[in-house]
């Protein structure tokens, strides 16, 4: 079956994105396919490359990146939500004249339509907020 996930909460501050990650791991282990993980609202903070949590704490950003590498996942960050919250890739940083950018590798920035497209393509769309 084809799954997509929508993640609405920031890592660390809320457990919801951790639950989404464990759900993603489980569905992949069961042989299902994960079409897309769409990060919206505070979920966009999953995609920062500037987080530096203590070494002995679970690093969710890194966990998403590893999972994406292992399974060729499409991790999409909503552009409108990201711009308001200070998550930028290189081209958005240039467009808005910002000195730096902070989107982690394996994530990409795109529009809300990517969530709708995920709903159309997927058998199941599960929201974590």
């Amino acid at each position, binding site marked *: 079956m084809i799954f997509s996930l929508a993640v609405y909460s920031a890592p660390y501050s809320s457990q919801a994105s951790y*639950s989404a990650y464990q759900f993603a791991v489980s*569905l992949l282990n069961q042989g299902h396919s994960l079409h897309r993980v769409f990060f919206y609202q505070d979920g966009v903070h999953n995609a920062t490359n500037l987080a530096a949590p203590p070494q002995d704490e679970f690093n969710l950003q890194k966990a998403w990146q590893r999972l994406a590498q292992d399974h060729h996942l499409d991790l999409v960050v909503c552009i409108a939500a990201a711009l308001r919250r200070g998550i930028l890739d290189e081209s958005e940083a240039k467009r808005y004249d910002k000195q730096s950018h902070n989107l982690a590798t394996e994530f990409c920035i795109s529009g809300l339509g990517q969530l709708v497209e995920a709903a159309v393509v997927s058998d*199941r769309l599960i929201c974590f*907020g």
Partner: protein
Amino acid sequence: MSTLHTINKSPYTHNTLVSCLKVCSERDGILLLEDGVFGILTSAPGADELQQLIQRGVKVFALVNDIKARGLEEKVAPNIEPIDYNAFVRLTLNHRCVQSWY
């Protein structure tokens, strides 16, 4: 086909469980996770309504990782089934769609 409802907020603090129970149909399922697992306690607001729904056919599950994390393993109310993340995935496939309450 039926709906799987997930609840991730404490019923002592939020009204989400009570809201969910109002519109839950008899063939639906409910999964408690994160702080939603406090809903497994018999003292939780909505616990009586939850047991009544179970009697009418609603299946209620709770994520075992979240139960253990919060130290509630010995406190699970009757007829609530602890499940792991793998079973959570299977549960979403046994229902037509998933409504996340938060």
